[in-house]
């Protein structure tokens, strides 16, 4: 085993475990051992910063009852959710706890809840963050008992005389065993009976309503007893398939969309053996040799969040206006807190179509230079001459994301790099020679070249 990581490998680790790395950080890591470099990521994420928000105005508005007030409340809720979304973005952009935030983002996708309830959504998010590098068992239990999940998958409607199977189905299909693994429709029905009576009080604390619970005997995955919800979750974790499924999903997200069964077996042993300790699992991945295998580097399409946060961290970006940030996320098909459904975002090639790719390629220019460095449209475009100046100015304003950034000062520092070094630093995939020679023909590193490099299709990969 090699003792140190190369620059490319360090960048790889930081892209996958976080959202990229600042150039100034590389020299300190390049001479230390792989183990120390990996450990540092975990030490940095030892602490956590829960999302917080002042819900005073929302709470006040919740008491109002007229139709007009209720409509205003609905609007306020969605607005608050968007502001919370921006807060999380700001945290991902500025935090040192990168691995913890990345894990939170992964589980935000794993336990995907789309609920226009900012308070409950925030609490769920904080549960994920709290256990992001701890016990998956505790995370699963707390998530299942959170108001957000109880509401989203209708467990409040799951009562003794009228069971609702929504949660029971998804907890197996999406959260633990994976679709069509081990369980049957009968198991879903039996589990749903065990989850009857799970509810929450008005203050958001979990409550078990005994009178709505089905006390009868249930047979679930071959075991028989008077099971309650907690028992079902315990049994699901007893099944090794849960470790396998989680490892597959984490592998696809952090390593490679194409699974290597041998690696999965290795990881599932470690994860199951550690009683579902996420820190142990993630360390095993980052310490493995195969994680740094060439075919695992620069092959993953960045999610919109990874792309925006990556640029944001690298160049100190701040969004002035939450609506612009939301609009951008919508255009790129990933709005945090509003996943498409309980299965989360499909990811991979799903992120890319003609519209999203065009925006993605323009994003560096839009985010870092407020559209100032927009590529020249005039040259060979006679129809552009016809549009009047006023029209063009208005269009330009529309395209601006209203961000501030430290692009000017940071690009001055980057100007010390040769173009080759700049590519080595910003691009993880291998750049085809045709593009390198014919598109990036500039001979010195300057702002324009930096924007160009960031606008390459390869910057979409990490």
């Amino acid at each position, binding site marked *: 085993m090699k003792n140190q990581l190369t620059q490319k490998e360090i960048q790889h680790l930081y892209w996958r475990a976080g959202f990229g790395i600042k150039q100034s950080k590389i020299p300190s890591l390049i001479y230390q051992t792989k183990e120390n470099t990996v450990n540092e990521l975990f030490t940095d994420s030892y602490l956590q910063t829960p999302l917080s928000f002042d819900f005073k105005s929302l709470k006040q508005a919740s008491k109002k009852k007229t139709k007009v007030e209720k409509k205003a409340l609905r609007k306020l809720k969605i607005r608050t959710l968007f502001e919370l979304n921006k807060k999380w973005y700001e945290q991902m952009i500025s935090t040192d706890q990168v691995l913890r935030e990345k894990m939170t983002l992964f589980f935000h996708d794993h336990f995907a809840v789309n609920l226009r309830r900012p308070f409950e959504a925030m609490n769920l998010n904080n549960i994920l963050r709290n256990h992001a590098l701890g016990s998956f068992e505790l995370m699963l239990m707390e998530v299942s008992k959170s108001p957000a999940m109880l509401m989203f998958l209708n467990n409040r409607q799951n009562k003794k005389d009228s069971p609702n199977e929504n949660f029971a189905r998804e907890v197996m299909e999406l959260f633990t065993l994976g679709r069509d693994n081990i369980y049957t429709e009968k198991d879903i029905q039996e589990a749903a009976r065990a989850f009857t009576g799970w509810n929450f009080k008005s203050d958001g604390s979990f409550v078990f309503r005994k009178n709505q619970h089905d006390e009868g005997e249930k047979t679930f995955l071959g075991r028989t007893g008077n099971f309650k919800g907690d028992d079902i979750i315990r049994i699901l974790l007893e099944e090794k398939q849960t470790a396998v499924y989680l490892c597959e999903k984490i592998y696809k997200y952090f390593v490679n969309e194409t699974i290597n069964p041998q690696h999965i077996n290795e990881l599932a042993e470690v994860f199951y053996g550690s009683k579902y300790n996420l820190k142990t699992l993630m360390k095993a991945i980052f310490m493995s040799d195969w994680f740094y295998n060439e075919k695992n580097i620069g092959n993953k399409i960045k999610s919109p969040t990874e792309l925006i946060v990556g640029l944001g961290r690298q160049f100190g970006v701040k969004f002035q206006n939450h609506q612009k940030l939301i609009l951008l996320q919508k255009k790129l098909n990933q709005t945090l807190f509003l996943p498409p459904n309980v299965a989360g975002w499909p990811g991979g090639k799903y992120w890319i179509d*003609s*519209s999203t*790719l065009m925006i993605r*390629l323009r994003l560096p220019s839009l985010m870092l230079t407020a559209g100032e460095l927009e590529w020249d449209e005039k*040259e060979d475009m006679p129809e552009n001459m016809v549009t009047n100046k006023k029209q063009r100015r208005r269009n330009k304003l529309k395209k601006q994301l209203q961000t501030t950034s430290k692009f000017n000062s940071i690009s001055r520092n980057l100007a010390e790099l040769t173009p080759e070094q700049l590519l080595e630093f910003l691009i993880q995939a291998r750049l085809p020679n045709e*593009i390198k020679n014919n598109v990036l023909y500039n001979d010195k590193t300057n702002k324009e070249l930096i924007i160009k490099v960031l606008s390459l299709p390869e910057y979409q990969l990490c």
Partner: protein
Amino acid sequence: MFASGAMLVPSFLKGMEFLTPEQLSGFKNVVIIQLSGGNDGLNTLVPFRDDLYYKHRPSLGLKGDEILKLSDTLGVNANLKIIKELYDKGEVSIINNVGYPNPNRSHFRSMDIWHTGSGSNEYLSTGWVGRYLDSNCTHPYESIEVDSSLSLAMKGSERTGIALSDANKLYRDTRENFFKQIATNTKDSMLSEDNQGYLYKTLLGTYSSAEYIKETAKIYTTKVQYPNSKFAKNLKVIGDFINSGLKTRVYYSSLGGFDSHVNQKNMQGRNFKTYSEGVSALVEDLKSTGRFKDTLILTFSEFGRRVKQNASKGTDHGTANNVMVISGGLKKAGIYNENPNLSSLDKNGDLQHTVDFRGVYATILSNWLEVNDEIILNKKFKKLGFV
């Protein structure tokens, strides 16, 4: 027509062409119109002989001149004049009670289901039109959405459709210096099967499609006056493309604002007027060139609404709904099947479906586009006889 770019286009994009007037005839295409928000089907096509309808909707039920009679028992909302006109000419087929088992009443989820063609308990990440592109098409422009972003319905796993609101704008955007440089320097060897190759394929597909669409769409200039609404403008884009001979099979467009929890009558009426005027112009346009017989316009919404009106003169989210198919080439026009059964509602008070929406897709795929529907829908669904 690729005077400037022909040499640069990699082989997988060659062979793009527009259709000559002789070839135009018989080139079948589909226009999908999505009514977003959950359109109330019972006030779209009104079972005006059914006492239960008025019982459930004392103030919201349509009567008298609010309805244009189609049959002895069913009438169309008077704001949908075009449907009545086409109905009388045998150019519309109305399919009642379309839905799916275990219906979901969330806008997002139900729209997802309609877009992907999944069951309510499965999650697919590709759309039904996208899978059609995957298995039967070569070029991204074979399905075009007239909008600024692309719907899930149009996304396949290997190919996705093109979204545009203006052919010239798409062309301009793809001809910006940097984008153009990348596109013109893309070589066959870079179009590998991995993610990097996929990025270049998408980029190049967009680049070439933009030119193809812009150049081809020039061929036809309509003489029909389209209304000023955004919806009608989008339909005009579609009309131009069809009449210009674009080799596009599926067009997609949507009209929003159907989530009528409050004061439904006015709101739905306004939207229907927009719909009716827009579709009317498109149909006139297609008839003037003889393309109406080759075009099928499918109108759907993610769900119908609750049978019983609510306390705010509106309706809440429901289930089964009607689907309208407009075309000059129908096999069976008129009212395709039985009226909604208001005496047999589910426990929420919603209509029960009798036709699976994927059966409608299967019919269009197999009988109209003449492709294998089972590969695209992953299952066999009972086909209908409207085409």
